[in-house]
């Protein structure tokens, strides 16, 4: 099954959408200029054409309130009237463009670190798209974790970008190497199969204008839904894909008595901007977390009194074509990493809410999703839910076994060096510049912290 992915700018003229042969439905991302509003899913069975009237009704019904708010309309019912095939009518359009085009903000230096592994062609396309950015002050750094470094290194030299070869496997280690290498104020992390939009870096930096902000992340949208695995991944919600601006603050730690801070799945390293000095002091990414290393970083940021932003305007398109095997592997690893993350919150920070999440909320959510999948209320595959459940169980166990093995092999000095910094959660990377920054020691228990 394939789903056609389309983008629709309501400010520009738009007409009917024709579904191509072999596709099951059309997924339309609705935008007002650079601002994404929401998504509409339509399925023209007989005519294979989504007419303007139908699309207008669907957009008004599903995204009406957001459009009315942005266009300054008095009522949601007026939205359908302004969604013309020639675009939004001129007085409203002009006012909207004027309101959203006059803002400017500082553009500090940014190092864009692209993690790649044995995909030189994909990397080149990523670098080419980065060269189209409208951001004035950035440099590109390729983090190569390939088995054979020659093709990637040659391609990086040809493209004129910096190159680091990471011998140790693991994306976390490679990204930590980028933190050591970079001298810019901010570091943006990107995967090689991601294609950022032209305003990507500008919008990330715009969200970082908050003085307390240390991390900014954005949506990672699927560029195509060409297989069942792609669709299942989109339904799984693997990467953040929301249309609203969200902020994680220190208050998020105590927002609920039974729920942990929602740092988990808040963002992704495929689209992330981090303050360099902060991540150096924090010790970089935790290399033991395979997929959720950014969640750990976010948690430590808000624990240190900073904020983390999610901006829906900094969009990257994810070009990866999933297969059934790769998707199952990813979901298992991701569920395991999330479980390890929660176990670490319990053991390191005595956050009992992570224990509740791990032992009660997450299994309950999986059981409910399984029931609705089997009853036909959800189209998400039940087999992936089982994979997720197995990963959630196996993740902490394998992690503990790995730690024990590592402890047995290493000597006391090495184990001392690897022990995480309790103040910021991991071993500090050398050469920090803490003169201008002060980090208070985090309390052992968030409830004590409130007191």
């Amino acid at each position, binding site marked *: *099954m*394939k789903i056609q992915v389309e983008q629709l700018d309501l400010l520009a003229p738009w007409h009917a959408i024709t579904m191509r*042969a*072999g596709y*099951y439905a059309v997924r339309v991302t609705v935008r007002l200029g650079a601002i994404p509003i929401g998504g509409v899913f339509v*399925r023209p*069975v007989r005519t294979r054409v989504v007419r303007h009237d139908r699309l207008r009704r669907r957009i008004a019904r599903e995204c009406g309130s957001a459009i009315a708010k942005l266009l300054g309309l008095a009522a949601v019912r007026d939205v359908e009237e302004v969604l013309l095939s020639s675009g939004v009518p001129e007085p409203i359009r002009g006012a909207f463009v004027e309101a959203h085009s006059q803002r400017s903000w500082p553009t500090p230096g940014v190092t864009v670190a692209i993690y790649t592994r044995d995909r030189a062609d994909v990397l080149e396309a990523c670098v080419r798209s980065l060269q189209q950015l409208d951001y004035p002050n950035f440099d590109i750094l390729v983090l190569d974790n390939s088995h054979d470094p020659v093709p990637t290194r040659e391609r990086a030299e040809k493209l004129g970008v910096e190159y680091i070869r990471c011998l140790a496997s693991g994306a976390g280690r490679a990204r930590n190497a980028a933190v050591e290498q970079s001298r810019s104020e901010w570091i943006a992390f990107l995967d090689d199969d991601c294609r950022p939009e032209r305003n990507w870096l500008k919008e990330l930096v715009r969200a970082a204008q908050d003085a307390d902000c240390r991390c900014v992340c954005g949506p990672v949208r699927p560029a195509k839904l060409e297989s*069942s*695995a792609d*669709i*299942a991944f989109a339904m799984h919600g693997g990467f953040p894909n929301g249309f609203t601006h969200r902020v994680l603050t220190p208050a998020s730690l105590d927002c609920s008595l039974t729920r942990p801070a929602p740092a988990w799945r808040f963002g992704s390293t495929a689209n992330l901007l981090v303050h360099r000095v902060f991540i150096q002091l924090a010790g970089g990414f935790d290399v033991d977390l395979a997929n959720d290393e950014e969640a750990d970083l976010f948690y430590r940021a808000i624990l240190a009194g900073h904020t983390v932003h999610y901006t829906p305007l900094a969009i990257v398109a994810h070009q990866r074509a999933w297969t*059934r095997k790769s*998707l199952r592997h990813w979901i298992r690893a991701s569920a395991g990493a999330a479980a390890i993350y929660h176990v670490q919150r319990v053991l390191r920070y005595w956050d009992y809410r992570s224990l509740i999440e791990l032992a009660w909320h997450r299994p309950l959510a999986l059981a409910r999703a399984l029931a609705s*999948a*089997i*009853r*036909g209320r*959800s*189209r*998400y*595959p*039940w*087999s*992936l839910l089982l994979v997720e459940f197995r990963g959630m169980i196996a993740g902490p166990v394998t992690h503990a076994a790995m730690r024990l093995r590592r402890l047995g092999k290493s000597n006391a000095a090495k184990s001392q060096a690897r022990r995480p910094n309790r103040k910021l959660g991991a071993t500090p990377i050398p050469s920090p510049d803490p003169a201008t920054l002060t980090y208070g020691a985090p309390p052992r228990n968030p409830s004590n912290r409130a007191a």
Partner: protein
Amino acid sequence: MSANASSVVRAGDALGYGTTHGHAARRVVAGAGRGVLMSVAILQVDLAQPLPTLQTGGRRGGAQWILVKLGPQPLGWVCCDAKQFGKSIGPDALLKLIYGTLSRRIQLVSRERGHDKPIALTRTPFSIVICTRGGGAAGAALERQLQGIAKLRTPSFEVIVVDRAAAANLAGVCETFPFVRYAHDPRSGVNYARNTGWQLARGEIVAYLDDDAIVDPHWLNALAANYDDDHGADSQVNCVTGLFLPREATAEPREQDFSRRVYRAGTWNTTFPFDAVTRVGAGVNLSVRRQTLEAMGGFDVALSGRGGELDLFVRILRDGGAIVHDPRAICFGAIPTTSGQLRQRMFDDGIAFTSCCAKHAYDLELGNHAIRMLARWFRQRLVAAVRPRQRDFSCDAVVAELVGGVIGLRAYGRAARRVRRDQPKFSGRDMTPREIPLRGAAAANRKAA
């Protein structure tokens, strides 16, 4: 439409087999033997031909089921009760009976299609694959079948007989027909033979027939009409199935609307496409594009015969293809006539169905459907086993199907492992499908031609 322009034949009589097959002689009355099901021959009446006088027969005065057709298009069933009409029924009474039962259907078909529109002769090259296991009576059955195929009103086709037993008598039968090619595949499982068939096929469309099926003269043209673009049919059709009718009825024929149906990806409800066999058709009367079979890797050899065709339907629909069921493509075949045969058939069907569902249970797109279909299937069978009103068959047959279903849940995994294990064994030998050259007079004629 003229009432005088009608005719009657037995099922398969159009080919001249009805009398020689001896349905009346083989009719077994209830209680004649332990475990033997009552079977009644099925007659067919074509309203486009003169109506004859029917011998409703039957010493016990039982019901006679008549399939009413309008040209190649079947319209419905009519039950002719000997108690009401006596030993014979004349054309007028027959016409009255047919119109009393099927008047609305006749009007509908006349208005929609027009009975005077013939099915055009197809130029599409067809390969008809017949998979057989040999055996004692297989030679005579194959000869009858090939004689029927020889009367098909289609200019270009070939027949590939894939013999799994390498029986000498079958090769001899094949030699007498110039359009027949003979191949041997020793591997156990009908899906191996089916794959051998399409790998040897030269035609664009591969049509599969059971070794005991007898085809209607319009069969191949009706199948081809759904593939040909100039007939107004859909160009994306990957598979066309026809109507299978029993030569003898052991129970009241099910109500069927005999209308052409098209199934596409995404048209399924909560259980479709896993109930495709009951909706779309079966492998006894099935045609597929050879290109589609090549792209999909053919039939899954880890499944049994009926499971293989269900799996093929499911994969075609999942991958965006379309399946057409055309009731004008009719073939007749045998059905179980003893309760033992029925039990065995139900047991095999249970294994085939649940093993196919188990295969697709981990599919990202159809996994939820497969699980739901399995739950529904088991629930229905359990209810049917304890409630007589809920079942069409005897309790022992339903229980046999249930047992087969339970076994089938793990059968696919075991069979797939066995296939993987046997792969090196087969790969050591040259298992390329190979045609065995025939040396008879027919082959000489073919060479000369």
